[in-house]
């Protein structure tokens, strides 16, 4: 047995790093003891280990994760080496010594089992040796804010990078709050990767500007490129897609989610060469233009491994039938428009086509679905785990209910609010496995016939105890309902409620919704994401600061009464990463109350609040490692804009931590203080 190093000051250390990860069967019966923590994993039953861990002082201070093969990894704070060794011997676990005595390859192998980028970030800070091992072995790199770090620096640190994820614009860009040419250009990342990491295989971009030029470079510079995922991006056209189709040999995945793509009419889909047989996933649902359907059918036929296919609205039922005939092994399907000319034989063919597709678990599309065609999918409803009907306003409630009754394995459901409380009650009865529900508004500019209310949500919460993720647009909500939901569903990790009238109180009591949201944050200890709406005072933020300790993202709109609200959140939520606020009365005092907090967060967005230019300048002066960006869209050319005073309120402010200093691609209307 190798002598282990005595932990330094272990009794004084009160907040141990907690690491969790997956394990393989290789390292059985080993215990690693290094500096302050004991990492134990062995193929014993979880019960034995749990009791051992508790005895060793693990309760409350470590995380025990049950993994497959009966291996468990957990970390406990250790008092002395001797105590640990005696415990370990007692239970017949073998114990080895300090991890620093193990060669790099062994350490690297252990790191292979850490897949989450946060775990890898954590282990890289333990000591220099681990930093070096980790950086050379990291394959998947995640950059949450493209302006926080330069691409060169990322790629110099992780030369073995195979998969890169980069996010650009702030979240509120989704709702037109960020001007069009704000930034987030993907080209520097692709150019640098082309130079430094030509082995790149996967690229995932979210809210970035991707030009056709970037796509062309991407298509040509990476011989092993396999997967491109673009989410909420813009700036490219079907020409860029044609480049990808033409030049990426061995492409496995092309996933376009909710992008704005210009249709240049070029037959990009026909550009996939006959030799392309590798596609596993193809999603072009967001494209508006037509594609060459016979090219699509041939492509589907030769890609035998295709498991995910999401068609756009231009694809009719006739084409869908032909495609399904060639791809009976699909697991995920986006159906296209789901409408046909008035020919009755289409229905029978459709029924037969779906009958053969018994692998489908995920369905979406249905843009123009007519009720009679909907019946064709009843045969597969009972195996569905994901159903997205949120782009299908044509489906009526009663047809929806008829379909939902068959979907007893459903885990994720996205619908329009035309489902009504009645429809939600049907979901609550049928879908006992439901984990995620999203109810979108169908009548965005309408006068608001009350489609879903608090009743629907309460029904879901009592019928679907596994519910952990919610996005709910409704016309009204009550405190009583939220309190009931909190009691029924304590496992929420994402809770986003949007009452369409932004400052509406509880319609029964006329009170603000502070107590309701307070109940949610108190009950749902794992809550990571929260969006508020309705009439709210500072009190709700007091509750959030007090109880939402795992909260990472908070969205606030038209809420609060004073600076105190924002301060409660900044001082309370220790895991907060993203805070976005609009139209709320928080000003400079709140902004400057806890400036150090912003370096622990990814970003802060404030628009139409009471923050002034002077406040932004003060923040920038105190915190040089933040970029304090102010967006000025005023178009007057008067002195007010050229020399605005510090008392001048800023419309939009975006603050984020960065290693790079002010960005060099900021447009005229973005000022960095």
């Amino acid at each position: 047995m190798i002598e282990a190093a005595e932990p330094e000051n272990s009794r004084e250390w009160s907040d141990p790093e907690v690491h969790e990860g997956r394990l393989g069967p290789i390292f059985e019966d080993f215990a690693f003891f290094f500096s302050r923590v004991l990492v134990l994993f062995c193929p014993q039953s979880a019960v034995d280990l749990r009791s051992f861990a508790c005895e060793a002082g693990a309760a409350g201070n470590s995380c025990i994760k049950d993994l497959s093969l009966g291996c468990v990894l957990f970390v406990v704070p250790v008092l002395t080496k001797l105590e640990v060794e005696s415990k370990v011997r007692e239970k017949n676990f073998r114990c080895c010594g300090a991890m620093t005595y193990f060669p790099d390859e062994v350490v690297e192998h252990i790191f292979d089992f850490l897949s989450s980028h946060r775990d890898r970030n954590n282990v890289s800070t333990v000591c220099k040796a681990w930093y070096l091992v980790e950086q050379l072995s990291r394959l998947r790199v995640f950059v949450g804010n493209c302006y926080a770090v330069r691409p060169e620096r990322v790629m110099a640190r992780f030369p073995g990078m195979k998969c890169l994820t980069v996010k650009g614009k702030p979240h509120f860009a989704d709702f037109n709050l960020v001007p069009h040419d704000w930034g987030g250009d993907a080209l520097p990342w692709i150019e640098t990767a082309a130079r430094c990491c030509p082995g790149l295989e996967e690229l995932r971009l979210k809210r970035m500007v991707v030009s056709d030029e970037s796509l062309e470079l991407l298509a040509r510079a990476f011989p092993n490129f396999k997967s491109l995922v673009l989410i909420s991006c813009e700036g490219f056209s079907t020409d860029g897609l044609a480049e990808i189709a033409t030049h990426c040999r061995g492409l496995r995945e092309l996933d376009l989610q909710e992008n704005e793509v210009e249709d240049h009419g070029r037959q990009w889909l026909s550009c996939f060469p006959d030799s392309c047989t590798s596609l596993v996933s193809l999603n072009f649902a967001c494209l508006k233009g037509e594609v060459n359907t016979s090219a699509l059918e041939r492509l589907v036929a030769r890609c035998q491994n295709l498991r995910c296919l999401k068609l756009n609205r231009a694809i009719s039922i006739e084409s869908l039938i032909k495609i399904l005939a060639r791809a009976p092994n699909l697991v995920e399907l986006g159906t296209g428009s789901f409408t046909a000319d008035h020919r009755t034989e289409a229905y029978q063919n459709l029924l037969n086509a779906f009958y053969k597709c018994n692998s489908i678990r995920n369905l979406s599309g249905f843009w123009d679905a007519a009720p009679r065609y909907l019946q064709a999918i009843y045969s597969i409803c009972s195996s569905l785990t994901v159903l997205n009907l949120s782009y299908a306003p044509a489906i009526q409630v009663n047809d929806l209910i008829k379909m939902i009754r068959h979907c007893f394995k459903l885990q994720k459901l996205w619908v329009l609010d035309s489902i009504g409380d009645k429809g939600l009650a049907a979901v609550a009865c049928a879908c006992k496995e439901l984990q995620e529900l999203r109810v979108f508004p169908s009548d965005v500019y309408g006068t608001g016939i009350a489609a879903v209310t608090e009743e629907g949500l309460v029904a879901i919460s009592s019928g679907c105890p596994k519910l952990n993720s919610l996005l709910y647009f409704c016309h009204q909500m009550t405190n009583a309902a939220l309190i009931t939901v909190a009691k029924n569903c304590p496992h929420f990790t994402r809770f986003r409620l949007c009452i369409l009238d932004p400052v509406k109180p509880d319609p029964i009591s006329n009170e603000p919704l502070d107590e309701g949201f307070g109940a949610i944050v108190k009950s749902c200890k794992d809550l990571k994401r929260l969006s508020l709406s309705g009439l709210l005072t500072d009190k709700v933020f007091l509750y959030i600061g007090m109880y939402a300790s795992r909260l990472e993202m908070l969205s606030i709109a038209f809420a609060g009464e004073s600076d105190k609200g924002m301060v409660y959140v900044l001082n309370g939520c220790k895991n907060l990463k993203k805070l976005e606020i609009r139209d709320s009365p928080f000003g400079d005092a709140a902004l400057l109350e806890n400036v150090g907090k912003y370096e622990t967060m990814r970003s802060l967005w404030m628009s139409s609040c009471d923050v002034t230019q002077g406040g932004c300048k003060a923040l920038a002066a105190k915190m040089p490692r933040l970029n304090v960006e102010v967006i000025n869209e005023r178009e007057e050319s008067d002195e007010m804009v050229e020399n605005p005073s510090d008392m001048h309120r800023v419309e939009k402010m975006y603050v984020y931590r960065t290693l790079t200093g002010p960005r060099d691609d900021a447009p005229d209307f973005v000022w960095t203080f």
Partner: protein
Amino acid sequence: MELELGLSLPSSDMMMEKRIKTNFCKKRSFDEVLDEKTVTLPLFLQREEDGHGNSDSELNYGGGRVIVGWPPVKLPRRRTNCVKVNMEGIAIGRKVDLSLHDSYQALFRTLYMMFPKKHEDLTYAHVRRTEEEDGGCDYKVTYEDEDGDWMLVGDVPWEAFIMSAKRLRIIN
């Protein structure tokens, strides 16, 4: 005709009203009208008056709600509201999506870009100055409403306009 947009809520709860006023009236040059229950806002002219005026989050509690970026749904989910636009004397028309605009100002901006006047350098500032000088501009924009009548654009509240406009026509 001046448009009056009431910032008082339909409910008679004074507490809430006060809160809303505190939140949203306490802005910019509207400070001086805090004493009044309702605020009269000229909708699309003289916006330069309130130097720090924020037209971005204009609230209208009259009956329709037009708040930029609210409700928070992504673009593909918003119902598009495209209407054809023709200009007198030009054979080829254009299409404009009214749902992407939050005011007459924004619409005119788009129209001027689509149908620029010849021989003029059309910066937005220039366009707006022209607008307030003439009380209109060289060309007038009309629309066909649900009844089939041709009306001058700008008379009704924006949200009423976008729901009733079927087609636009620009007259020299």
